[in-house]
Structure formats: structure tokens, C-alpha cells
């Protein structure tokens, strides 16, 4: 395990990690020198206790590891899906955008692969055991006969996957409340999934696959043919913090579509489990 890399990753989301771990950088160096000599198996424990000291709030709790593994289970599927997609998707259906679309899917694949690695490293560092990939059914139990050969199907699955992933993260964000490292990392990943979703929606619009779609989720997107049934259930919500956003404070231009678009809604784990089960994803 490359724990120097883990620290580098964490430093990206928490620039003060070294100060937190030990205000004396010299002492950090000592730690690395010592740990070169200790058995590899004991390193996760050493790092876990180091983190506990640094953040002082039991950062390696079972609840946190469970949230990280939940994300990892979905990211495994996303990484596998896009890895296959870069090679097998029929980008020629995007016509003049074929090369650009392939480049976009390659960027997205690289992000998902990096998310898998980040979550695996972080879970190990926190003293947990990362979940392994499952055996996936990319047809979604036959709903998509040719998930890669049919470019429309491919982008439908991609959009559903991105939106479901980011909504799943919202559903468990509360369990990471107050965690500067874990919550911030989860939010940083979550925002990237939203960028992916917007991009895939723009690709579908450009390819002429949907004429009602926008880069944001409007109501429950029910006018748009999409992945499976119920993927956007709850997204039509226009009540935030107990107040209807439609026409809020006399802003009469705020209609129901815009009021729903302005907020992406969380999905609970039970719903995510149900939605992804057809693809063989076990969360």
C-alpha cells in the first residue's frame, strides 16, 4: 500500500493534514522511515491510529467505513462500465462528435477509476476492508439488449448511473457530518459526478437522442426516455427546508420545473440498492 500517496490524496482535500498529523514535519519523516521497516500488514493500523490522533473524532468508525464502501461498490461498477464503454461503445452514432464523445467518455472513465483507487486507499488507511467488484450485468437484466453496441442505450445507462451515484452520496452525506477529510472527499467526488451527468446529458442532446433533456434534472425527467423506471423518483420535489420554492418570496418566474431543477434530491440506500440490483451491483 502506498500510504505516501494516500497522504498526498488527502492533502488535496485537506491541506492541513500534515499539520494535523504532527506539527513537526521532521517527526513525520521519522514515521515514514520507521514504517519502511515495519511489516506491511501493520501499516493500515499505524495509519488508522495516526488519523485518529490527527482528527480526534474516531475517523475510522465502522459507520464511516461503511459509507466509503457503499460509494466504492458503485464506483467499481462505474469504472467497469466506462472501461468497457471506451473500447466497445459505438461512438460512430455520435456522427461528427464521435471523436469528442470518445474523449469525454475516456475522461470520465479515468475519473471513475481514480475514485475506485482513492476509496480503496482511504478505506485501507482507515483500517477497513475495501469491497471488491461484483459480476455485472450491463444489460440491466435485459432492459438494454446491447448496452455498448447501441450508443443511445450506452448514454442512457451512463446518465442514470451518474445521477444515481450523486444522489446516493447525498443520501449518506449526513453520516459524514463534521468530517473534514471524509466528507470533503465525498463532496469533491460528488461534484465530479454532477459534471459527468451534465456532460452526458449534453452529449445526448447533441446526438438527437432526447429533445426534452437539459443539463440539470427537471421535475422527475419523466418526459425523457431514460434508464429504467423510477430513477428520478423524488426529483420533482419543490419543497426545501419546509418551504415551497415555486414563486418563493414572490419570485413569480420560479415555476415548478426551475424550482425542482435548482436542487438535486438524495436517494436512500434502499432505493439505490433496488435501482442498481438489475445491473448486479451489490451495495
Amino acid at each position: 500500500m502506498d500510504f505516501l500517496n494516500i497522504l498526498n490524496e488527502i492533502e488535496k482535500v485537506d491541506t492541513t493534514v500534515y499539520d494535523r498529523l504532527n506539527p513537526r514535519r521532521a517527526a513525520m519523516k521519522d514515521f515514514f522511515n520507521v514504517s519502511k521497516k515495519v511489516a506491511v500488514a501493520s501499516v493500515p493500523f499505524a495509519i488508522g491510529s495516526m488519523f485518529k490522533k490527527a482528527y480526534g473524532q474516531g475517523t475510522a468508525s465502522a459507520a464511516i467505513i461503511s459509507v466509503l464502501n457503499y460509494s466504492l461498490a458503485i464506483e467499481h461498477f462505474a469504472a467497469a462500465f466506462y472501461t468497457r464503454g471506451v473500447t466497445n461503445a459505438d461512438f460512430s452514432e455520435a456522427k461528427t462528435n464521435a471523436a469528442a464523445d470518445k474523449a469525454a467518455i475516456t475522461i470520465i472513465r479515468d475519473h471513475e477509476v481514480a475514485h475506485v483507487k482513492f476509496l480503496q486507499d482511504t478505506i485501507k488507511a482507515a483500517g477497513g476492508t475495501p469491497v471488491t467488484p461484483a459480476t455485472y450485468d450491463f444489460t440491466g437484466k435485459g432492459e438494454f439488449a446491447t448496452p455498448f453496441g447501441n450508443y443511445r442505450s450506452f448514454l442512457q445507462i451512463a446518465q442514470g448511473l451518474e445521477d444515481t451515484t450523486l444522489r446516493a452520496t447525498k443520501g449518506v452525506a449526513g453520516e459524514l457530518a463534521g468530517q473534514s477529510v471524509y466528507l470533503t472527499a465525498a463532496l469533491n467526488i460528488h461534484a465530479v459526478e454532477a459534471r459527468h451527468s451534465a456532460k452526458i446529458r449534453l452529449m445526448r442532446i447533441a446526438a438527437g437522442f432526447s429533445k426534452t433533456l437539459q443539463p440539470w434534472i427537471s421535475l422527475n425527467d419523466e418526459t425523457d426516455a431514460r434508464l429504467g423506471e423510477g430513477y428520478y423518483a423524488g426529483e420533482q420535489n419543490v419543497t426545501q427546508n419546509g418551504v415551497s420554492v415555486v414563486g418563493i418570496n414572490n419570485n413569480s418566474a420560479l415555476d415548478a420545473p426551475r424550482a425542482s431543477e435548482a436542487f438535486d434530491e438524495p436517494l436512500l440506500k434502499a432505493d439505490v440498492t433496488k435501482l442498481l440490483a438489475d445491473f448486479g451491483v451489490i451495495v
Partner: protein
Amino acid sequence: MNNLKQEDKEISQKSESILNARLRRRSFLQYAGAGAAGVALMAAGCSKDKDPVGPEEPPVVPIDETVSFGTGDNAVLNYAYALEQLEAAFYTKVVTSPWAGITATEKDYLTDIQLHEIAHREVLRNALGGNAIGGLTFDFSSIDFTKRDAVLATAMAFEDLGVSAYNGAGYLFSSKDYLGLAAKIVSVEARHAAFIREAIKPNSFAEVVVSTAGMDTSRKPSEVWAIVAKYITNKINTSTLPA
């Protein structure tokens, strides 16, 4: 399966432009009176007639007065509220005085974004209640609103900044409800950022701001404030923000 069939039908009408599609979407919603959405939309339409005074604006803060964010969750909410005020004011200026040659699709999407930012601003204001700061005064004199490039470059900077601000402030909330609210907002800001970036340059949806590790940017409030200060005329005391 029904969806797939429905899409096949759509595909046969593929030659229509995206603009028509978007107009169709709006009119579809107008006539979908049976659904909750339609009812809500009509309610919104009615309130327009009953609303001769327009939006309820918060009292404008006098320029010589120092704005205080308050403490704890209120400080974090006011921080977000100030940023949403900035974004809403910017897009309002964009759509009320658009650059020459703006396309109907661009105007439509930018109006959507403007209304999303107003929704964020108002929901945060209501959440803060009596603890909300007043209306801030902005200085957009450095932006040439007649130039598409200048407007989109600023929009990109604001959206990327907004994403990093919410990402960096999430853990500061004590209330899980407010954290949840911020999480609902930040992904929409990220959608805006991706859309604006694609309008500037194809496939730049995650460029620069997303690391090779696939992580978006997070910024501390002090880092965000150093960037937005030049657009805000008011004096603001940010020292009470949780560190």
C-alpha cells in the same frame, strides 16, 4: 420498456432543433394540468397577477455598514447566501442585458441558471430568517457584459468557485439538515459549471478544477472570500466563520 418505445417515437422527429424541443417542453408543462407540476405551475402563473410589487427584496445593507455573518451554522449559511446573492445578481444582469447575438438556446439556459440561483438565494434567506444578512451591493464593472467570452468566463469562474465553496464548507455545518441542503445545491452548481465550460470549449467540463485523482476542488471560506471580494462593495466581517 415503455420508455424505450417512447424514445423511438421521439427519434423519428429528430430533425427538430433543440430550441424547439425546449419550447415544447415548456408548453408540455403548461398543458399538463393534471399533474402536481402543472397545478404548481398554474399557481405560480396566478401569483404573478396577484403580485403587483414583484419579488420581496431583503433590505439593502448601507455601504458604510459592516456586514456580520453571525456565528456557527448561521455564519456558514450567510456565507452561502452571500455567494448566491452574487451569482443571482450576475445572471440577472446577463439575461436582462445579454450580449448581441446571444442564441435563443443560450438565453433559455442562462435564464434557467438565473432562476436556479434565485431559488438557492431565497431558500437560504428563508432558512436564516431573522439571522440573514441584508441585500449586498455588487460591483460588476470589471465585466464586459456585451462580450460573450467575458460573460461566460466570469460565469465559469463563479460556478467553479461556488462548487469549491460548498465542498469546502460542508463539514463546517453542525446541522445535518443544512448539510443536506448544501449538498442538494452544490451538484446543481457543478452542472452549471460543466454546462458553461462546454459552451466555452468542448470537453472542458471537468478541466483544471478536477484533479487527476478525479476530485473536484474545495476551498476554505477565506480562500473563496479572497477571490470574490472584488465584486462585493460592502465591508464584510468573515472572521466569525468556523475555521
